[in-house]
């Protein structure tokens, strides 16, 4: 990993025009993605993770509208705003620069074409017509994701198990050597052992091929394992972002703290799991001030009035909260018990 930035998102906002009014699914999101790093997006479902990732490759639903912001993508020293690309540039950008594994896509492969033809389709769409190159590259990638190369190459999708298909998709994802791979809950449909295998494969691929990952998950254990940095999303906003250890051991936002407390594996030795009270907010008519304040144990009158800006507290660790000091106080018990146990 180095400091070279491949993706810089500035003030990105997405609205869905629904029959009940505009849904503010992503509001003023800003973050950076460095070369070779894995950034995890965590947060309850409905917090806008999928919307954010779809906006990055401009594959949002027709009802969606990107109404503000920039997505700056850099390759070989050249920076472009993805939101300004025309259809042709966008098509070229997809998969060649940024591959995506969609949430819940069980049938990512066309059932009537062999796997090898779908790899060929992908290569051809980006001007790579050399079949021998494709064959070598594909077989190599299949080995990397621990598939039986020749068998999978000649298979139809239905001849592969769910786990094998997911690995095939990962291999397809890096076929063209993209700089970014977005994985939206890539393992939720799989059993626990297959999940494990996929994560191992993914880690190995990343070490070998050095692409950047945006890893979306509501499974914090997986996120902790995959990520170098973590961003917590709430109600369409990034409320905290920092290094993986900062987020998991020294959270600075009450929502992140709440998430950690509600997970058995991470809240070592804690007597009881505490889930966050209340429901995710209505994004058509979100709460005033800090959107989390109705569910927050530390909320004061100021929180309902004024939205806290994302502010840096430690190196590379930002939080959007008026009461960071109270969070630091409260997280001690999470932190202490972990230490005494280990």
């Amino acid at each position: 990993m180095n400091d070279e930035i491949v993706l810089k998102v500035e003030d990105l906002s997405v609205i869905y025009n629904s029959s009940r009014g505009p849904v503010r699914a992503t509001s003023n999101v800003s973050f950076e993605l460095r070369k070779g790093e894995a950034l995890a997006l965590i947060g309850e479902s409905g917090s806008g993770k999928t919307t954010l990732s779809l906006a990055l490759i401009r594959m949002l639903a027709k009802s969606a509208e990107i109404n503000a912001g920039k997505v700056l993508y850099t390759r070989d020293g050249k920076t472009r705003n993805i939101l300004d690309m025309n259809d042709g540039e966008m098509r070229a950008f997809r998969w060649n620069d940024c591959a995506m594994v969609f949430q819940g896509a069980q049938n990512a492969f066309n059932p009537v074409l062999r796997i090898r033809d779908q790899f060929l389709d992908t290569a051809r769409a980006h001007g790579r017509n050399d079949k021998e190159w494709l064959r070598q590259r594909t077989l190599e990638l299949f080995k990397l994701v621990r598939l039986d190369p020749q068998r999978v190459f000649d298979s139809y999708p239905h001849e592969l198990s769910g786990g094998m298909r997911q690995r095939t998709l990962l291999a397809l994802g890096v076929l063209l050597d993209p700089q970014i791979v977005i994985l939206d809950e890539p393992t939720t449909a799989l059993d626990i052992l297959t999940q494990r295998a996929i994560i191992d494969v993914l880690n190995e691929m990343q070490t070998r091929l050095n692409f950047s990952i945006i890893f979306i998950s509501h499974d914090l254990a997986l996120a902790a394992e995959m990520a170098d940095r973590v961003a917590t999303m709430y109600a369409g906003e990034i409320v905290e972002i920092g290094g993986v250890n900062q987020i998991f051991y020294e959270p600075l936002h009450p929502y992140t703290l709440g998430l950690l407390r509600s997970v058995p594996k991470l809240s070592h030795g804690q007597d009881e799991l505490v889930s966050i009270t209340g429901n995710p907010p209505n994004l058509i008519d979100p709460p005033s001030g800090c959107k989390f304040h109705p569910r927050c144990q530390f909320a004061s009158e100021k929180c309902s009035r004024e939205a806290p800006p994302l502010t840096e507290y430690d190196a590379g660790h930002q939080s959007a909260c008026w009461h960071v000091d109270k969070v630091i106080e409260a997280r001690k018990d999470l932190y202490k018990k972990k230490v005494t146990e280990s």
Partner: protein
Amino acid sequence: MATRSSPVSSASSIEISLLDRILDRWQKINSNYVVRTIIQALITVWAVITFTFFLIRLMPGNPIQVYVAQLMNAESITYEEAYGRAAAQFRFDFNASPVEQYFDYLGNLLRLDLGDSIISVGTPVISQIMRFLPWTLFSAGLGLLVSFVTGFVLGMLMAYYRNSPLDHILSFISSLMSAVPNYIWGLMIMVVFGVQLQWFSVGDLRGTYDPRLTPAFTPEFIFDIFKHALLPVITYVLGTVGSWMLSTKSSTVSVLGEDYVNVAEARGLSERRILTAYVGRNAALPLFTLLAISIGFVIGGSVLIESLFVYNGLGNFLFQSITGRDYTSMQGVFLFITFSVVLSNLLADLLYARLDPRIRVSGEK
């Protein structure tokens, strides 16, 4: 299994192992999709043939009895004479037992001997069928093809632009069209364009070609064939294109919602490639099956249209046979229709297996 490895294999255990092997063999054959489908089709054909036999020969008040009574009345001949004539035309030996008659009947069918026509005395039914069949295959087949292609293209358009004004208009038109039976379309064409507007002369377009021309591969003759087939073809298209549009739309809409279409877009494939290989191919799968099945209904569906336009195909022939009480011809055409329905269903199954690897492979294993 145990019986086979037993060292003291008695006669019965050998039999069992033989039976085992036969069953095993049968299972292998039966698990082969293609073979299984063909066997099912053959069984269906046999069942229909047998059923027809009982219906025509043995049921009380069956066509042969009716025909015999008719003959006696019309030509004031004896029962024996009339019965003898009927037997000759229907090709059976009235002295033989029903079982023998049944096997004779099967044998005749295998030799494609469907008896003699009653109206056209001395002409075998099979040669009548062969004479009229090509015209029906040509006109109804052309209608089916044009209708399918048009419906498929328009249906895909509707699916791609669903909820647009275009979709709403086409949906309305196609529902309306598919609700009107094809002979109503035929009548409307006849009355509006033939009688009212006089765009064509109803009399001139009768038949399959102008009798003043000699059949040959000349441009003039071929043009004339198309001219005479035009009205039936248009009628078939109007009668079926609406339902092709609607089926294509619903099939395409469901494919457009599939993950792999979305992923194909994310992979940066060209719209054209997605449209043909990803959306089109998958949307067409169920429609090809429907298409193959509808081939079987071409003859049955042509009866009213061909008699309306006096187009000399098999449908018109059946219509004439029914009105003229030509029982042997009716029997022949009905058997032929059955056979073509079964055959087209078989074709549909085999075609589906060819086009959908999911079926192909599970059948082979």
